[in-house]
């Protein structure tokens, strides 16, 4: 079974530019999550999709961040315009609905560096 795939693995951009991160969850996983780890600190929740619907976006830092999951398959996280404090590793995770929902499968992360 293919795992959670994230692209790009590393992106370096200038402050003010736009970056779009993509996540392909495990096929059949309706739950999709975005998390972020900044500067070696704790991994923080950003938002949660169930299929194409945003279930909880309470962790999104501000309106410069936009997440979508068209068709309930892959998801994108756009940062526009990027600021220095947005640098970090963005993790995507997915899980089944129902009994398997508690165990998340994470991708390798997309490292974002804003200069």
């Amino acid at each position: 079974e293919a795992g959670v795939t994230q692209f790009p693995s590393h992106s370096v951009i200038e402050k003010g530019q736009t970056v779009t991160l993509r996540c392909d969850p495990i096929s059949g996983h309706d739950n999709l999550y975005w998390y972020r780890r900044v500067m070696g600190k704790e991994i923080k929740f950003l938002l949660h999709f169930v299929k194409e619907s945003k279930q909880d976006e309470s962790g999104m830092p501000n309106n410069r961040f936009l997440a979508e999951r068209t068709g309930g398959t892959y998801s994108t996280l756009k940062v526009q315009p990027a600021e220095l404090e947005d640098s970090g590793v963005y993790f995507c995770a997915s899980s089944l609905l129902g009994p398997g929902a508690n165990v998340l499968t994470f991708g390798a992360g997309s490292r974002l560096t804003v200069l």
Partner: protein
Amino acid sequence: AQSVAQPEDQVNVAEGNPLTVKCTYSVSGNPYLFWYVQYPNRGLQFLLKYITGDNLVKGSYGFEAEFNKSQTSFHLKKPSALVSDSALYFCAVRDTFTGGGNKLTFGTGTQLKVEL
């Protein structure tokens, strides 16, 4: 608000010795507790979880963790460490009151280094 503390940034242990990675938590209700491991250039991998039942939980790769409600702890343990266990370990908690989603709160991570 829920929180997780991993008091040690790094734990060093000799191969063959027992290892412990510490975790304490704070939640308003009953906790769901998890350990994940991250190897270099890989995603976080699920190790084990405590939802209910026996306080000693066994997981992947010979790891286990003990849920201690009175001390609000969920320390990760392994009787005999391997060099290949060297990785970054994250403890996480989910409050049972959060509803259907898995909005996990993670600790800052503990780097485990197992040396020959």
